[in-house]
């Protein structure tokens, strides 16, 4: 029980400010202790993730040292392994995904918050949220059985016309060669990137929409009152206001894209060389490396996988901290939910 008490006898001539005391009853103290203990427990679980990965990875990291970051091969049993190839693959897949998903997500978020007919808005919001909850294995199936065949034309066109950029080169084909084997375009970073893009776009969209919808009505009406068109209003008010949300949403999607396992694993054909050609078959990612090798790993091999997992964990953690600090510092505030 909390109670307010006046303490001491006030002197008759000089008024003394009353001291406010809150006495917490036993129930409340227990309540506080219990809640704090819960907070501590959650923190422990979260810390345990990093700690145990580090503990298990220590053996492998001691053997390889800095070479762990620069080696592309993965042969842990002869102590020749590193994450150069898988990390490059992870970053490339995430980069492709974010490049595709961000324009879609920004456009859709603006559409839902400011362009769509009012009665459609709630439905659209629900649909976006629902899409964010669709299991990643479903996206993986779609990529494997549908997109894989249909994207070859686009991949070929890109490599024909933009093949002079190293990123889009495909070894073993010449521009315009009609008989080139189609299989060199499948199972590539690009295909995996498209699938991951569709997976993260709803998440990004829902964060951005949340922020766009909060753009101050006064400023929006001000823009209209000064004769702005709707797009003029969006450019002058909504986009500057929602910048934090755009960056935060993008980073959040990036975090998800970096950690995606199953969809990527289903699509790519793993290679253990650094593969900078995103259209060419063969790619890799940290998480699919773990999914691929956890079953047949020796004790030392497991330690090496833990080290790879630790690297992925630190990478996503860094991305996330950046995202939340950007969103928190921007004007849009921290109201966006993941």
């Amino acid at each position, binding site marked *: 029980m909390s109670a307010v008490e006046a303490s001491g006898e006030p002197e008759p001539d000089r008024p003394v400010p009353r001291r406010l005391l809150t006495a917490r009853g036993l129930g409340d103290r227990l309540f506080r202790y219990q809640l704090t203990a819960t907070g501590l427990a959650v923190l422990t679980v979260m810390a345990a993730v990093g700690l145990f990965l580090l503990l298990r990875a220590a053996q492998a990291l001691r053997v390889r040292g800095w070479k762990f970051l620069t080696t592309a091969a993965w042969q842990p049993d002869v102590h020749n392994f590193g994450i150069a190839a898988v990390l490059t693959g992870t970053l490339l897949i995430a980069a492709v995904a974010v490049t595709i998903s961000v324009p879609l997500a920004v456009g859709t978020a603006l559409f839902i918050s400011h362009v769509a007919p009012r009665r459609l808005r709630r439905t659209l919001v629900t649909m976006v949220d629902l899409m964010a*909850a669709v299991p990643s*294995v479903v996206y993986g199936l779609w990529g494997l059985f549908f997109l894989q065949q249909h994207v070859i034309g686009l991949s070929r066109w890109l490599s024909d016309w933009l093949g002079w950029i190293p990123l889009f080169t495909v070894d073993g084909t010449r521009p315009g060669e009609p008989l080139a084997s189609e299989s060199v375009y499948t199972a590539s970073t690009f295909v995996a990137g498209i699938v991951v893009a569709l997976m993260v776009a709803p998440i990004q969209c829902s964060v951005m929409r949340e922020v766009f919808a909060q753009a101050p009505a006064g400023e929006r009406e001000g823009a209209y009152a000064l004769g702005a068109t709707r797009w003029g209003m969006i450019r002058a008010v909504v986009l500057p206001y929602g910048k934090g949300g755009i960056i935060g949403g993008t980073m959040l999607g990036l975090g998800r894209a970096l950690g995606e396992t199953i969809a990527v694993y289903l699509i790519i054909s793993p290679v253990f060389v650094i593969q900078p050609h995103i259209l060419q078959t063969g790619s890799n990612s940290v998480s699919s490396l773990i999914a691929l090798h956890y079953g047949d790993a020796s004790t030392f091999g497991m330690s090496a996988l833990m080290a790879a997992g630790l690297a992925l964990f630190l990478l996503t953690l860094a991305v996330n901290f950046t995202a939340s600090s950007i969103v928190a510092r921007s004007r849009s505030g921290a109201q966006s939910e993941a």
Partner: protein
Amino acid sequence: MTVVEETGLTSGRGEKTGVRADADGPAADAPGAELPDRPRRIGGVSRSGVLSLAGAAVSGLCVAVLLFGELAPFSGALGFTVTAYAAFLAIYAVLTGLEEDREAVRDRVMTVVLWTAAVLLFAALALVVGFTAWRGREALPHGNFFTQDMQAAGPLDPLSHGGIAHAMLGTLIMITIALAITVPLGLACAVYLNQIPGRFSRFVRTIVEAMTALPSIVAGLMVYAVWILGLGMQKSGLAAGFAISVMMLPIVIRASDVVLRLVPGTLAEAAEALGAPRWRTVWHVVLPTARSGLATAVILGTARGIGETSPVLLTAGFTAALNGDPTNGPMISLPLAVFTFVRSPEPTMIARGFGAAAVLMGLVLVLFAIARVIGGRGPGHQSKRQARKTAKASRRDEERFTELHAAALQLFDSGSQDDTEQINDSGDSH
């Protein structure tokens, strides 16, 4: 920033608006440019707008047909669509430009672009969902698909043998374990973040927020490191449940935290002012007010947890048999079953995979629908039943107060003078 130089209220068509804007402003192209005499249309549909849209669409299509069929050596469905769209946008811009100023043209074109982005995203997502459901049609009509496991069915057996009962049971058990851990822990932690502010709780909140995008395979790896390598347990449904909990916990905490923050402070303050201790305030005021939002948070977390494959892949092992014991022996979940089915080259196995994926998707959809029905209302809004219950409770309270009041009046009438003075004294001293 825009500058208003003259103020004059304009009410109707045909009056000068009297507003000028500098170059940065959205309103005009150049400093001092006069705005059109008519008020700006923002949104809405006009006849000429529809006509130019339709005209541009038709001509865009014609340009593409011409280019692809007759003039240039282009080919491919995708190229056709892109060319048609580009031509459509250009023609639309020109058509609008015939009767509008530059700002309006830009607005029209961007509106079309935003529509396109949204249609593209929703179409792609509908394609993903629709494709899975369509491919699942082969396996789903078989009743045995839901009642049998894969123990007796080989890869070459037709769809009338075997099913995913073991995976469904596994998913149910794992998610139950995960919910049993995350709901009490997650909600209590969210309450902690809201009710006991301070440096430590801010720190916990930061960590939890950073963990919401924890790669699910890392969660699986952690449980693998602790439970299976560290404690020497075998792969089991329990371990998978733990892995899913680690993944779900930050999601549930974050979503509940957001919901709890929306509970009006006045309600809690009113409870405190009535002398309720903090824990009663939380239990009787804060949590019930946020109930629908909390349910949504938990259900959305569940939807995420059900769909995750990689933590289960690492910790649950693999089995084709029905296993109802989470502490003993390997177990399989729906997403993991999908994953293993589609890696087989056999068409029937792939059909089973799609069937299982469709079931999984249906499950997520149902959970989501429940979440929407429960969580459609903000904090403080009640359903009809809840409203009736509250009304009944306050009627009861009123009766109780009337009785108490009557008793107090009797006391007042029959009590001695000293009693009354004491009451007065205690009232004055504050």
